[in-house]
């Protein structure tokens, strides 16, 4: 086994698309300050809101999943910015004090 088959978002994404599910891929593009997942980290989301992987320590995944459902519906990619300066920091911000930029695109 070369790549961990469990918990690998890209392998999960491939098998989801192949089984006919609509899937979005979220990718960390940039980070500033203290951020738990480095650039290039993935979260995959299907049309039902199931997900695998992460783009933060669990702080913003909820918001990314909601946006991903929009991206799946429209087919238009989105760039999302999350930072602690956000007024809704406790809901969709990073309590660790960093900022991240996440790109969400539809797969397939």
């Amino acid at each position, binding site marked *: *086994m*070369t790549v*961990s088959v*469990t918990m690998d978002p890209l392998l999960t994404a*491939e098998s989801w*698309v*192949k089984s006919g599910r609509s899937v979005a891929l979220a*990718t960390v593009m940039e980070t500033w300050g203290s951020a738990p997942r480095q650039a290039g980290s993935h979260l995959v989301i299907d049309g039902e809101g199931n997900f695998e992987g992460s783009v933060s320590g669990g702080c913003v995944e909820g918001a990314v999943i909601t946006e991903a459902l929009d991206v799946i519906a429209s087919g238009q990619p989105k760039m999302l910015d999350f930072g602690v300066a956000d007024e809704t920091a406790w809901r969709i911000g990073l309590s660790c004090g960093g900022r991240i930029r996440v*790109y969400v695109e539809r*797969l397939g």
Partner: protein
Amino acid sequence: MQLAELARLNSARLQRRAAVVLTDISAGGSEVLVEGEGVPPALAGIVTGALRSGKAGLTEIEGRTLFINVHLPPPRLLVIGAVHISQALARMAPIIGYDLTIVDPRTAFATEERFEGVKLVADWPEDVLKEQPLDAYTALVAVTHDPKIDDFPLSEALKAGCFYVGALGSRKTHAKRMERLKEMGCAETQIATIAAPIGLDIGAATPAEIALAILAQVVEAFRRRDLAAEA
């Protein structure tokens, strides 16, 4: 990204080939470039740099904003000894994403039943290393206690510059081992880099706890290795 591109990327990753994904943020669309399959000349510099650093990031090329993601093969973990600790290592390594192989010439230990689904070679390290030489992206973990089996791969690992070399055994056992490795031609400075007693000092007592201590030490060695020294 299209399904065909995603499948190509995953296939490269499963074959331990490096790959780069370029996503055009301005126009949308992704391109997967697999090492050794040719890179458009305009992108060669950026792709080579990304593969060397392993770092993902945004960049501007000819007025386009591109995100470059880098997928490098995970480090290998070569375990000498199909012992109880190795059974735990074999279960933990895939979770960390390490590519594990176990070598033990003792066929009583190296059985399919004890290591189901694990890359297991019931052969002498001398023969196995001829086929699969060690490199800087390999960690060598020697856990048989038996000099006849452990010593050769340990000396080869030091010569090959494996990013981690660890050997099971008490301080007394290791002192004798160091003498033997010196006689085999290893430099004292190299011998001093062997992690022994093996594993981070977390008071590990059971085989599974020792496996955890070893894996944690391997990850530490990989993440904190001196990249400047490699270049």
